[in-house]
């Protein structure tokens, strides 16, 4: 089945979202504060507009105030919302809260859902995810060192984390720590919900970083003899790795589609500038060099978009799509960086001034090749899958008409 058209329902949703972007999101970007986003008095009314239009928290099921739709629809909407760094905050689908919300939906107890998921879903509170540790490679979560030890009916967490995005201002953290050091690498860790007012939880600092679009910074945090009740374990003991993976799959669809939105916007900036600014008597768009930039960017965006929608479609069919998700992760992140880079190249020094969104997008975009698995890791995953498929002479998942 090949079908490249949005359904009428999807079209309506996208048109509505685009209208909100133009009317309410882009004009408010000027109020954005680095690492803090929009002030609440501006943000909250905008979120209400999104809620009133039924476009709130697309990733969540309807019972938690979300839209309860499939990955393709979620991806398409993410593309529109993702054009602006404040889009996901206004539409209630920002990282890391979106991913945390998904884990809670999947693994939380009813009490945990009431206490944490409901207010999170409504953006009454924010959250953070404490996994990456400075001491060990983030590319290999099996090597995490932070621990939780059972003591009576409590768990005692000791861990040093960084890139705990959004920790500043978050009400709770989901911490991934080792509970079963003797188990195999995939079953050593568990997840815990930790209130950030717990005396054992400390934000050491906001790490200074290249990009500044995420609210609440990328923090270094420490859990020091941090005692939490037994009931705050999220999911089952030993499921940390599995649940973290579960969080990352859909996250990669929304990331990749947001990147497409950013790339599309950057391409538009490039085209806009190349049409109006004169270089001598001609516009830049008359130059074949710039035309090549435009064509290459269009090709890459389209390729990445189709790869992503295909991965989303497979996930909607119940497939885990490990290979496809890895493909879009490294390819999409590279496309994002390529297109912004060409746009800046077209605008020249002007493209690095705050007069266009490009320099901020450029700085933020570099992280895409690192977070949720660096390029190298995802290339490895893809190569491993492809090799295995070849060796097993099984190419069932290839959407190619010509058998290879």
């Amino acid at each position, binding site marked *: 089945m090949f079908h490249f058209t949005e359904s009428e329902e999807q079209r309506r949703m996208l048109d509505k979202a685009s209208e909100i972007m133009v009317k309410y999101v882009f004009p408010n970007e000027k109020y954005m504060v680095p690492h803090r986003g929009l002030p609440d008095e501006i943000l909250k009314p905008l979120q209400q507009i999104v809620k009133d239009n039924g476009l709130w928290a697309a990733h969540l099921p309807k019972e938690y105030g979300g839209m309860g739709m499939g990955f393709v629809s979620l991806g398409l909407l993410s593309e529109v919302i993702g054009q602006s760094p404040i889009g996901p905050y206004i539409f209630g689908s920002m990282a890391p809260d979106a991913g945390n919300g998904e884990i809670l939906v999947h693994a939380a107890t009813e009490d945990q859902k009431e206490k944490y998921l409901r207010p999170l879903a409504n953006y009454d509170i924010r959250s953070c995810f404490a996994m*990456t540790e*400075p001491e*060990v*490679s*983030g*590319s*290999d979560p099996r*090597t995490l060192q932070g621990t939780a030890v059972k003591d009576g009916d409590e768990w005692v967490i000791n861990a040093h984390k*960084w*890139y705990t995005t959004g920790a500043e201002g978050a009400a709770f953290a989901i911490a991934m720590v080792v509970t079963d050091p003797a188990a195999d690498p995939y079953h050593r860790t568990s997840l815990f919900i930790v209130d950030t007012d717990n005396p054992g939880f400390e934000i050491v*600092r906001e*790490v*200074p*970083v*290249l*990009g*500044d679009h995420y609210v609440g910074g*990328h923090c270094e945090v420490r859990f020091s003899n941090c005692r939490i009740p037994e009931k705050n374990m999220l999911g089952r003991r030993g499921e940390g790795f599995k649940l973290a993976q579960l969080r990352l799959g859909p996250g990669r669809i929304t990331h990749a589609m947001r990147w497409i939105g950013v790339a599309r916007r950057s391409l538009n900036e490039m085209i806009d500038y190349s049409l109006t*600014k004169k*270089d*001598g008597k001609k516009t830049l768009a008359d*130059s074949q*060099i*710039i035309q090549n930039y435009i064509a290459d960017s269009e090709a890459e965006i389209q390729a990445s978009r189709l790869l992503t929608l295909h991965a989303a479609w497979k996930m909607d069919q119940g497939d885990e799509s490990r290979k496809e998700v890895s493909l879009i992760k490294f390819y999409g992140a590279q496309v994002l960086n390529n297109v912004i880079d060409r746009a*800046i*190249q077209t605008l*020249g*020094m*002007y*493209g*690095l*001034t*705050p*007069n266009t969104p490009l*320099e*901020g997008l*450029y*700085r933020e975009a*570099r*992280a895409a*090749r*690192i*977070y949720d698995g*660096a*390029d*190298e890791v995802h*290339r490895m995953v893809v190569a491993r899958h492809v090799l295995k498929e070849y060796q097993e002479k099984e190419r069932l998942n290839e959407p190619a008409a010509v058998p290879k």
Partner: protein
Amino acid sequence: MSNTIVDIELEILKKTVHAFIKDHVLPAEHAPEKYVKELSEEVVAHLQTEAKKAGLQALHAKQEWGGTGLSLSARAVLLEEAAKHRLGLYHPAGDAFGGDFPSFLDKCSREQIDKYIKPAISLGKGCFVAVWEEQEDNHLDSLTTTAIKDGTEWIINGHKAFIQNMAQSSFGVILVNCQLENGDYQPALFLLEANQLSIKETVMIDVQSTHSIVLENIRVNDCQRVGAIGEGTALVQHWLAEAQVLLGAKSIGIATKALEFGKQYAMIRITRGKPLAEFPTIRTMLAKSFLNLQAARLMVSDAAKKIESKEQNWQLAAQMAKLQATETASKVIDDIVQIHGGSGFAGDLPIERWYKEIRIARVNLQKAETIMENIADIIL
């Protein structure tokens, strides 16, 4: 034989700069728990005092002016070394050697030297150059700022943008088109004092300031002119070529330093049971960086010599060296960010700043598209 002596002297100077960075600049930038974006005036003043003791100030300015009087080739070697620290690309040695003194200042009269250059050198400042207008790679022949003669004065109208090193300068030079008596326009350079201008600051990519000025009936005396009327563009071209070579050298400096970080990190960071340095992807990144940096370094050195001897296509050599050096450095720094992962994205290491600044360098002083066009023009 004399070459060898020069080489030995240069080698000694290079070691002096290396030691200066290690002993003075790196400690000045070192501030645990803080994110250093610039050095305070006091710190820069202290660095300049130390640099003077080492005989390193105003590297390009003539010795009789109070400078060090080094050739372009020598400066390229030294500035590569001087750039090897966090702020090094646009503030080599933390501005310890003072500001820039473009070659066209050789044309200055004794009065001009006394009034502008010597005080700048003793203040540890230099000379900014106001050339570009709408775009930073404007064609020099299509600039629009004009000067109309009025007695012994010229009245300047127009605007200039993308002026760099303004904060490190006590005076500047502007390129304008002077209206002749027959109505034609000819380019000329005029000395300017920063305090007679309305200046606007723009921060580029969160890290580096650039300035623009609007000139509305700004009066300059004819005695502020540098060189002859009609000579302006040629003088600016020479400045541009030198600046391109030096930007190339500094880019190689930060990228070489980045490679050092990359090598060290790759050897200690364990993933999937072994150091990154054992993964072929990482080894290739490091090896390519090493290879391409050496190629770029040779091009920079070659261009410096060609400019000095005004060999045929010296301008092209400068452009090619700039392009090769900045593109190479950009790729190296990008790879080193990748090797570091989250640590590369964080500002704890200087790599994060280099990533931003090398993006400026790629479009600064003519971007790839312009240079490619110029190369094609010449070889076709």
